[in-house]
């Protein structure tokens, strides 16, 4: 259950695991969510509700976040 002052977003890391719900404080930015998930912002592109978004964009309750690892090196 979402606590007061928290929102729930649906997160999917492409190619790694199924979508899951993550609770974060209100006004959380994508970059904060990435930190929480241990993802480096330099290595991923994020789709917010299906559209590529800047990592400083703030999340709202019910948002869908897709994380695509694009920096693979090698």
């Amino acid at each position, binding site marked *: 259950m979402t606590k007061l002052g928290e929102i729930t977003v649906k997160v999917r890391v492409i*190619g790694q695991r199924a979508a899951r719900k993550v609770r974060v404080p209100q006004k959380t930015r994508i970059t904060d969510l990435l930190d929480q998930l241990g993802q*480096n*912002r*330099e*290595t991923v*592109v994020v789709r917010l509700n299906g*559209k*590529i*978004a*800047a*990592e*400083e*964009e703030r999340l709202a309750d019910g948002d869908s976040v897709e994380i*695509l*690892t*694009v*920096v*693979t*090196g*090698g």
Partner: protein
Amino acid sequence: MLKCSFCGRRAVYNRRYAGTLLCDRCMVKSVERRFRRAMGEHRLVSPGERVAVAVSGGKDSVTCTHLLADYCARKNCELVTVTVDEGVKGYREKSLPIARENAELLGVEHFVVSFEQAFGATLDKIVKLAKRRKTEFNPCTYCGVMRRSLLNQAARELGADKLATAHNLDDEVQAIMLNYIRADFSRLYRLGPSYQPREGFVPRIKPLREIPEKEVALYALLRGIKVHLGVCPYAGGIHTEIRDFLNQLETNHPNSKFMILRMFDRMKPHLIAAVPEFEMRKCEVCGEPTSTSICKSCELLQGLGLKQGQKTLISAKSLVNIAAS
């Protein structure tokens, strides 16, 4: 909603090292501008030249091919694409069709050359042999040396004046750091936007050298270019450690990658002055140019008990026919 610093549309990217937000259109334009600037500033290609671009099917090489196709059409140059099939099961067979599809889409000739044809063994087999023989080298050493050798041979065979590779800012900075860590002076001084090697080698160019890897990926995604985003199963070791370190550094201190590159570029003229003179010879085994009696790829192959065979270039169309029959 965050807005583009230039046109006010919805931003898709925060270019922290420049302090600007970019929308999809401005992002695409910016990458194209930076590519053209690199081509012009360093005179990477001259009108009328034939350019071979190494394309794996990954985001960097496919993006580089798209940008070069447009550039070559404007500059009256001819572009051909070359894919090296190293023979990595579950990896290359996924990216190779994407390389071919993009070449067809752009109306560019596509050639495939494989480790198996040229060296008598796939990289998978080479890795197994290396493990069995307990050599000191990792898969990236074999792959890097042999791929470079094959690309040079293919480019020369195709009559190319330049060989373009899709090394981006991240790749170049990683290479600078790696050569520092290994104290490898001879590899360090060769880094740069272009390299004019000795006779027998096709001059190499790196048009994406000043574009961060993430921006190359964004460009491909925003333009809807079909790319392969898989990871080589052999990736790892010190390369990955350096990459992770640099990405963490860039996150905490934006612009670090560019600063490392700029400092290296400032130092490079002084490094060149310290390069020792050496005589170019022909490899005693394969006849390819080398500074020693045996080239590095033959040396590695001999260490595995393999002998370098004859290189064969196959057009992509004939490969499809072979697969169909």
